[in-house]
């Protein structure tokens, strides 16, 4: 059986998150110290070699992303994506609430690698109590001179899921409507205030101190070779234990739901799991033996995403849940591009019609065509991913849709 393995949460519940002294005692800031003895290019090469891939959803090689920042850039920024808007996800909150200094140390390591003097943490507006903790942690680190000439400022989001998209996030820090930019240019070249900018997820940063300290080989040997390390998962829905756990990326969905989650609540049977948050695909029983690493999940038409694991038991109504998810995207679309602004709205209307038993087969066909176009035509990942729950439930749970149709 797969065991929990803690890298990111290594200090969780062992130290007082409000006391930097505890963190120091647990080996804190030694990774940063070691990183600062390396040249920028060596540090980037080490991170690249560890094959740490972004934990915010897109799984881009972290070191590779850093290497896009021009070495002669006079100004560059390090931005931590702590928007965590994906429903069912609270892992970044857990990481920060249990060990905020790990994040700060990871950001400072990145700051050294890309020669940045200024970091920003973009924290969702719904976490004001975490912002307080972060500001305390930053004050402590600054007070001890640990950050050196690298400074970190916390900025708050305003209740817009799309601001988790890195360019929308940058727009939001700049004080604008959180509408994604077209790419290229990528943030590594022209990001915050048009300067080179690295955007990484909380969990990505929190992995860095251990990787630098223990070496890239150590990290690369943990979990799945293509997506090494661990993943912090949040179990929600109808599992017996609704917990957050950190497991090597070789763990399978079945292990996660049954071994860590304690199986389905109240002895009921499993029906479906949606991994990666509300924009993830639905997965039926037959695919539960898939490991959670990014590529394996993609292989079954799902995504690892944020690592949210939303479990539904046999009594759950897939069409109703998918309708609810369609409303989420209708509410969160930024409205910039046509296929998403109009598409999420109409998809929700069609789902409501199906859910209310008023639809005919043609409606499902229209929904399918719309979904297929949105996946390829939308400007950003929100609109591209919005159809995933619809298309995967149509694929794996079609009889539930069919049962809702009006007989003609």
């Amino acid at each position: 059986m797969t065991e929990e393995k803690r890298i990111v949460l290594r200090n969780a519940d062992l130290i007082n998150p409000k006391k930097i002294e505890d963190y120091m005692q647990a080996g804190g800031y030694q990774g940063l110290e070691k990183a600062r003895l390396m040249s920028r290019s060596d540090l980037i090469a080490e991170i690249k070699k560890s094959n740490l891939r972004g934990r915010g959803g897109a799984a881009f090689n972290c070191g590779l992303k850093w290497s896009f920042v021009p070495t002669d850039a006079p100004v560059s920024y390090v931005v931590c994506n702590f928007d965590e808007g994906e429903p069912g996800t609270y892992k970044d909150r857990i990481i920060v609430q249990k060990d905020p200094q790990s994040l700060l140390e990871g950001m400072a390591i990145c700051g050294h690698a890309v020669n940045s003097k200024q970091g920003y943490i973009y924290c969702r507006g719904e976490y004001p109590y975490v912002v307080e903790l972060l500001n305390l942690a930053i004050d402590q680190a600054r007070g001890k001179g640990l950050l050196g000439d690298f400074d970190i400022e916390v900025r708050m989001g305003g209740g817009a899921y799309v601001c988790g998209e890195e360019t929308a996030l940058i727009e939001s820090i700049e004080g604008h409507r959180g509408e994604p930019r077209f790419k290229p240019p990528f943030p590594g070249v022209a990001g915050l205030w048009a300067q080179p900018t690295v955007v990484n997820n909380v969990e990505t940063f929190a992995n860095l101190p251990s990787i630098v300290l223990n070496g890239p080989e150590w990290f690369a040997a943990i979990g799945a070779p293509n997506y090494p390390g661990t993943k912090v998962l949040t179990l929600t829905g109808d599992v017996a234990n609704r917990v957050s756990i950190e497991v090597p990326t070789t763990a399978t969905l079945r292990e996660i739901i049954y071994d860590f989650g304690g199986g389905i609540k109240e002895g009921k049977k499993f029906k479906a799991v949606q991994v990666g948050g509300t924009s993830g695909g639905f997965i039926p029983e037959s695919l539960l033996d898939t490991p959670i690493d990014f590529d394996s999940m993609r292989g079954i038409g799902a995504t690892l995403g944020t690592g949210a694991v939303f479990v539904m038991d046999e009594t759950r109504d897939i069409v109703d849940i998918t309708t609810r998810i369609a409303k989420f995207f209708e509410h969160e679309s930024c409205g910039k591009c046509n296929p998403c602004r109009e598409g999420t709205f109409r998809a929700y209307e069609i789902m409501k019609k199906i859910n209310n038993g008023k639809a005919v087969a043609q409606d499902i066909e229209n929904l399918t065509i719309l979904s297929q176009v949105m996946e390829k035509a939308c400007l950003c990942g929100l609109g591209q991913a919005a159809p995933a729950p619809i298309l995967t439930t149509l694929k794996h749970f079609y009889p539930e849709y069919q049962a809702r149709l009006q007989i003609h």
Partner: protein
Amino acid sequence: MITLTINGKEVHTPKGSTILEACQQNGIPIPTLCYDPDLRLAGSCRMCLVEIKGRPLYAASCVTPAENGIVVETESPGIVAARKVILELLSARHKFNCQVCEKNGDCKFQDYCYQYGIKESRFIYGEATNYGINDPNPFIERDYNKCIMCTRCVRACEEITAARAINVENRGHHAKISTAFDGNLADSSCLFCGQCVMVCPTGALTSKVSAGLGRAYEVDKVLTTCSYCGTGCTLELNVKNNRVVGVTSNRTATGSPVNKGALCVKGRFGWDFINSPDRLTTPLIKENGQFREAGWDEALDLVAKRLGEVKNEFGPDSMAVFTSARVTNEENYVAQKFTRAVLGTNNVDHCARL
């Protein structure tokens, strides 16, 4: 130079071009709604999508760089299907009344619906957009039930006029072009320059002054220079049955070298005096305290004769010429030349100096 393949044909384009530009240079038509060559790029309407071999997502050609060796399809079945869906989605919220719409015949949205055969939308589910259309200003009709949210108006207001009167409010399907607190233009920083009307690809923004006077395809477009001030903006008079029924913008650098189509409220909306019965249409000569109509020859002969008499009797420096900022540079040049060479005096001045 960059070499790429578009629709099976190898084409070349200067480095730094977008795929859209490469297509335009090579005569390959691409539909665009949010793209405007004079405005910041948006990449948001997604009409200009193309397929690039090996890339899983469609690319908006207006914001995607042309790269060496890429293979582009501009009208593949997938692209056509996507454009149709986009047009149908826009149609589902659009208040079609082309029969009375000021934009009929000059409307990009209508053109593309025709081109892609959008007879009806498959996506009419839920409520239609229903915005009020009463902005009580004398110049601009705003009907956001015809708006396709291309934001060209917002960008034009900011980047051409710098009035920044309008922006996008709310988000998602509720996003709408609005002033602060969604009020009337007159209560905002709007200058009624009409640049927003100029760039709007649909009938969402139209001129109230021209309403009902003629279709785009019924009018002759006559270029002239605005007579309100000395800037010398080019106007495009819309002439129907020998009457001016509107002013539009010629946005080319050659047709409109001074202003590239941008105008102010006077030039764009203040042309109804042209057809006023109070206008002088012939010279008038005053005799015995009464004006009478005269021909140009008679009038000019009279003026020349009287100026000559004054010059002989009192000398050239007894006369002065004063010119106006409301005529063009060229006319001002001619006036000073006339003063110096014909009247023989340096007594010439201009209202802009005062």
